[in-house]
């Protein structure tokens, strides 16, 4: 019973994610695109929950929907011209990008097929959040701090570009 439920949930969520991803690149109204993007993020968060990765799911919602999508919407509304009329999402380079995207898909599928997936014999970890926290501050503390520095650099860069010099 459990297994069937999980498979059905996976296909529903994956279907929502794929359909809304297609909508993101095909709808003509930018705001509609961003709302579809939010739906896709939500479906992916649902997929994480079916994999018992609740922490990642919550962070996915908190950051991608709560911050990234909200900022996208904010910026689109600030540049009102974009919402006034429907905009074509494609230009004359359509053909080339289709070929490139197809190549990328081929590459990914080949890699996925050739990888031998190790199925871990361990049981499902009960409290993944504290495990992740411990690992982030012990084994992976250096990469973790490095990512923070990268983010800080982005922040400073944005401020430097946006600020008006007073001289």
């Amino acid at each position: 019973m459990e297994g069937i439920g999980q498979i059905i949930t996976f296909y529903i969520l994956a279907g929502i994610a794929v359909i809304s991803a297609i909508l993101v690149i095909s709808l003509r109204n930018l705001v509609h695109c961003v709302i579809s993007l939010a739906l896709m993020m939500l479906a992916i968060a649902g997929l994480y929950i079916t994999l018992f990765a609740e922490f990642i799911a919550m962070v996915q919602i908190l950051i991608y929907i709560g911050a990234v999508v909200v900022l996208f919407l904010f910026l689109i509304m600030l540049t009102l011209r974009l919402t006034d009329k429907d905009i074509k999402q494609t230009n004359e380079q359509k053909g080339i990008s289709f070929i490139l995207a197809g190549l990328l898909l081929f590459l990914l599928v080949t890699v996925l097929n050739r990888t031998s997936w190790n199925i871990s014999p361990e049981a499902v970890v009960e409290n993944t959040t504290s495990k992740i926290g411990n690992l982030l501050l012990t084994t992976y503390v250096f990469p973790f701090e490095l990512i923070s520095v990268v983010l800080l650099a982005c922040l400073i860069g944005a401020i430097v570009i946006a600020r008006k010099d007073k001289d």
Partner: protein
Amino acid sequence: MELLFNTQELIDSINIFLTNLCWNYNIPSWILTVVIMAVVAGIVAGFVAVNTMMLVLAERKIAAHMQDRLGPMRVGFHGILQTVADAIKLVLKENIMPKVADKTMFFLAPIIVFAPAMMAYVILPWSPGIIVSDLNLGVLYLLAVGSIGVIGIIMAGWSSGNKYSLLGGMRSAAQVVSYEVSMVLSILGVIMLTGSLKMGELVNAQKDIWYICYQPLGFLLYLMAATAECNRAPFDMPEAESELVAGFHTEYGGIKFAMFFLAEYANIFAVSAVCTTLFLGGWQGIPGLPITLPPIVWFLIKTYAIVFIFMWFRWTYPRVRVDQLMTFGWKLLVPLGFINILITGLVMVIK
């Protein structure tokens, strides 16, 4: 009466009874799960509706008495049925949609605002054992769910096709993103002390002393950030009546407007209940005070006290300006939040 004190036993015995029922009549267990989910969802929805009616009346009465008026007096004894009358009026109203509105988004926005407000009720700990689901990630879940609602507000503002609505939606986006940071920082001190995100454990950790004694700064920061998150005065920039007509819900009427209202009051209650759980010991009585009340009564008393503080804020403070709002959030609340975490960490290391 006895059952109100031993809610854990009550829930356990209901569970055993239902499991036996299924066993005796050969009902598959998933049907039981679905039925329980539907019943619990119904109870929560009913509570949200009744609670909203009470809070709207309470707000009008509190506002009136603070301004030396009487408030609604006509419908029922001292206007006690006023919100029932208002609700009936709202439900019966014609559904109006502006010609320039974006139909789908205009329709979806109230739902997207309302759904996350309801989802927060999953983790509220009413009494031992009475919690819809004591998730491992309790507080984080609350923050994640709370961040979805703002998309609905932006959608409402944009799809109305009205400059004032759009401005309200944009203000809401900027405000919620900014104050979410200080909200997380204010909660972090309590999480550090408990070492758990589970609501049940957070309550049990405060058996001897409430966290408000260890985290007075965190409590104040949470109150301010929560006021801004709920778009309440003095931070009600998204719907500032004197500047934006009614902000993001200017074009809404009837049942759709009622949904925004329900979401607002559901949010206020949820935020106050979380404040009770994190800082005021949840369902537990005041330590050292020889009064025995059922846990759920303690929980409701504390939560409504916090709700009263929010209403008090609204009717005593003037609205801040947009730039003041941002300065206050980023230059005062966020640094204070970091200082709070630093002090908490230092004390924990020294101890």
